C-alpha cells in the first residue's frame, strides 16, 4: 500500500469518531519497500490539495521518510519538491504490518501490500 492511499484512510469502527484520533492511522510493524515508479507531475500537482499534509508529515516522520514541512508556493515548478513528494507517496510501499487507530486501537492488517479494512461484527 502506498502512502497516498494511507493518507486517505481513517478508522471507521462504529462510534470511533474523534477526527484527531481516527486519522491518520499509525503504522505498527511496517515493512517498507521502495519501488521506482514513473513520475507523473500532472497527477502530483493535482493531488496536492487533496492530501492531508499535516497527516502526511506525521506519517512520514513515523516511517523515517523525507518530506518538506511546507508546500511551496509554486509546486508545479519545484522539481525537488515534486521528486520528494513522488518518492514519499507513490514509491514507498508498506508491504506488511498493520495500521492502528489512535482512538479505539483497532488494528487493520496489511498483507502483500493490501490492507484489510473489514470490521468485526461488533464494530459495524
Amino acid at each position, binding site marked *: *500500500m*502506498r502512502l*497516498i*492511499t494511507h493518507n*486517505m*484512510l*481513517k*478508522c*471507521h469502527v462504529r462510534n470511533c469518531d474523534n477526527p484527531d484520533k481516527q*486519522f491518520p492511522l499509525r503504522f505498527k510493524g511496517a515493512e517498507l519497500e521502495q519501488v521506482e*515508479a*514513473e513520475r*507523473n507531475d*500532472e*497527477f502530483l*500537482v*493535482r*493531488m496536492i490539495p*487533496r492530501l*492531508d499534509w499535516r497527516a502526511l508529515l506525521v506519517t512520514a516522520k513515523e516511517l523515517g521518510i523525507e518530506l518538506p514541512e511546507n508546500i511551496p508556493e509554486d509546486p508545479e515548478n519545484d522539481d525537488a519538491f515534486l521528486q520528494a513528494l513522488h518518492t514519499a507517496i*507513490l514509491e514507498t510501499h508498506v508491504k506488511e504490518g498493520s495500521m492502528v487507530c489512535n482512538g479505539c486501537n483497532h488494528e487493520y492488517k496489511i498483507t*502483500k*501490500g*493490501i*490492507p*484489510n*479494512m*473489514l*470490521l*468485526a*461484527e*461488533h*464494530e*459495524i
Partner: protein
Amino acid sequence: MPKFIVYFAQLHEDFRLPELDALSKLENVRVEYDPRSYIRSSPFLVVEISSSEQAAKLVRRAILIRSIIEYWGSGRTYSDVYSEVKHEQERWALYKTSSFKFTVDAFGKSLTQEEKVRVINGFSFLEFTGPIRMRNAQAEFFVCEEYDETREPKIWFGRVVGTGSRDLIDRFDVKKRKYLGNTTMDAELSLLMANQAQAQNGMFVYDPFVGTGSFLLTCAHFGACTVGSDIDGRQIRGTAGFKRGVDGIRANLAQYNVESRVIDTAVFDASRNPWRPGPLFDAIVTDPPYGVRAGAKRQGRVGGTKSELSLRLVDGTPNHARPDYYPPTEPYEMSFVIRDLLHLAAEKLVVGGRLVYWLPTVAGEYTPHDVPEHPVLQLVANSEQPFGSWSRRLITMEKIKPLDSHEAVVPERDPAHKNFRDRYFNKFGPVA
C-alpha cells in the same frame, strides 16, 4: 465548418453517440451534427468539425469508431458522388502527386474484387499521378456502398483523416490476461467505460467493486491513476477461483504497463468505507454486483449483528482477533447498492467528476424513472445493452455542484431493478 463522416463500428449502437460526446469534451474538439440524422442501423454519421487535425484528435481514443473521413461526396449513384466531388476540384490538387490508396468497402453486401476494381477506376477522373501504396500511403481514400433493408445503396466517398482505437480491444482481450474471474468485464466495454469517465493523465479514479480490476487497467491505460476496493479480498488477491496462484490483480499490471498508475487495492465494504471525508476522486467507474454471478453482500448479519459473537473468547482470544475470523455478511439488495453508490459518488467526487456504472434492468418494465437520481449528480448518458429478458444500462453521471446537506431524492415507486437477483432466478416472472 468542414464536413466529416464518422465511420462507427456497427455494434453497441446505443453507446456510440455518448462516446462521441464524451470524447468531444475530453479532447476539447467541437463537433456538430443533426441528432435526427443519426441512424442506429447505419455505421455512418455526417458531422462538422473545424479541421482534419481536430477530427483525428476527436476519434483517436474511440472504441466504437473505426475511422473519421473527410467528406468528399455521397449519393444514391456513383454519378451523384462524382458530381459532388467535382465541385471541389481545388481539393484534388493537394493530392495530385501523393502516394495514395483506395479502400473499397460495402456494408450490408459483399463486393467481389472485380467490382471493387471497377469502383476505383470510376474515380480515375481525379487523375492522381502518385504511386499506389497499400501501406503508409500519404492519402487514403475510402469508398463505401451502404445497403439497408430496401437494398438501395447509399455511396460514401472521402479521405481518411483519423482512426479510432479498436485495436486496443484485442490487446485488452480478457483471454489474454494473466488474471481474470467470472465477473471480469469484456475488453470493449471496459475501454468504453474509461472513455465515458474521460479517464486521462492527472486523474484519480476509484472502483468500489473492483473484483478483478478491469477498470483499473483501462483507466490507467489512458493515463489516470486508479485505486480499487472490494469486500472480497480473494478476488483482489487471486486466492480463489480462476487462475489461482497468479498474484491477483497485480499479475495484470506489468502485462499492460500500468504498474506506476494502478496505485492500490484494499479490502472493505463500499457501503461502510474508511475513506476520510470530502471529495477525493475525479471519477468512479464500476460494475456493482447485481447479485447474480457474484452474490451482492455487505458487512452485517441477517436479523441484526450480534456483538457477542465477535467478542466472545475462544481459547482465551476474542473471536474477532483470531486469524481465521471472517466477519459475517448480509445480502445487499440491488436498489440499495445503487442508492449507496450514488451517495458515495456525491460525496467523494470532485465537482465535474463522473460516475460511470452499470444498472441492470428488467426489459418491458424499465422506465427512465428507474435511473436513480441525486441532487448533485446530473445524468449525462444512459446506454442499453440488451440480453433479451433483461438489459444492463451504462449510466454516466456528472457531479455538478458541491454536496452540502442535500438529501437524496426518495423514489416513489420500486424501480424495475429492485430485487434484481430474485427476479433473475425466477426468469423475470411477475412481481409477487
